[in-house]
């Protein structure tokens, strides 16, 4: 289960609304490489992960991603708070406004609603960890792309924090993959799937 702490993992205090930049940042909430998908990926993969260290790692990183999802949502919320009708129209925010008013909804920068098809839970330890490594890099690239678009430091600071965490998680998942491989047959990692096949020894 989870307990809520009534604070953001890293502070978000944005004073200048900017609907244009909100529209791209919301991709890291509900887009293909966003925090919602990251969290659901790791929290789904952990059940059949046979090694407790790696199941624990998926739980703890999946939990941190929930805190990131909250930060990204807070950024989008503060960037779109109190927008006037004129600002909504001038900033190209009218399509989002039509469907969600100023409510926070998980979708990509291109307007596609969150889709669980953006992640896998394959039931194979090597496959899942390799996906997780790629996922951290895809999120890192997205944050790099966002940082090239953001001019406001109040927005850039929490984004930089989130970007740095992708790199740390990539490191941790690399260690997780190594732990898995150490427990498999060094001559053929794929001799059996530890999440499905019974070990013969």
């Amino acid at each position: 289960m989870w307990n809520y702490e009534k604070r953001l993992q890293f502070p978000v205090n944005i004073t200048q609304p900017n609907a244009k930049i909100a529209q791209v940042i919301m991709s890291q909430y509900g887009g293909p490489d966003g925090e919602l998908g990251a969290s659901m990926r790791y929290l789904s993969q952990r059940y059949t992960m046979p090694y407790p260290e790696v199941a624990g790692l998926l739980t703890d990183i999946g939990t941190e991603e929930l805190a990131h999802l909250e930060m990204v949502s807070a950024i989008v919320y503060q960037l779109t708070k109190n927008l006037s009708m004129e600002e909504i129209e001038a900033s190209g925010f009218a399509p989002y406004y039509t469907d969600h008013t100023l409510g926070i909804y998980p979708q990509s920068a291109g307007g596609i609603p969150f889709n669980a098809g953006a992640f896998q839970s394959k039931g194979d330890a090597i496959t899942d960890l390799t996906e997780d490594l790629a996922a951290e890099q895809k999120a890192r690239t997205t944050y790099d792309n966002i940082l090239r678009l953001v001019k406001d430091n109040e927005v850039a600071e929490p984004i930089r924090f989130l970007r740095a965490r992708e790199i740390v998680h990539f490191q941790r998942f690399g260690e997780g993959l190594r732990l898995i491989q150490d427990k498999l047959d060094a001559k053929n990692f794929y001799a059996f799937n530890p999440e499905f096949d019974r070990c013969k020894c």
Partner: protein
Amino acid sequence: MKSNMVNERARLYHNINVIGFVIVDMIEYLDTHPYDKEAIEYLNHYLALKHQAMAEYAEKYGPLSIGNVPDTDCNEWKWATQPMPWEGGF
């Protein structure tokens, strides 16, 4: 006087964020290094600091976690009445 109180609250809140970050980072490190004695001691030190800071914050300004609700304050359920963290907060 009032701004000093705000500063004090912001300072304590910032400390909790810093300590909280150390804990998250160390927990993930220990998942893949569960026998690193030095890291366990380091984490334990920060867990104690977090416990202390969360209790102090709850006592003075209201709880940030349901585990820290002071049993001495029955006049107001501050968990519900304090602002949510995305509303600026501290």
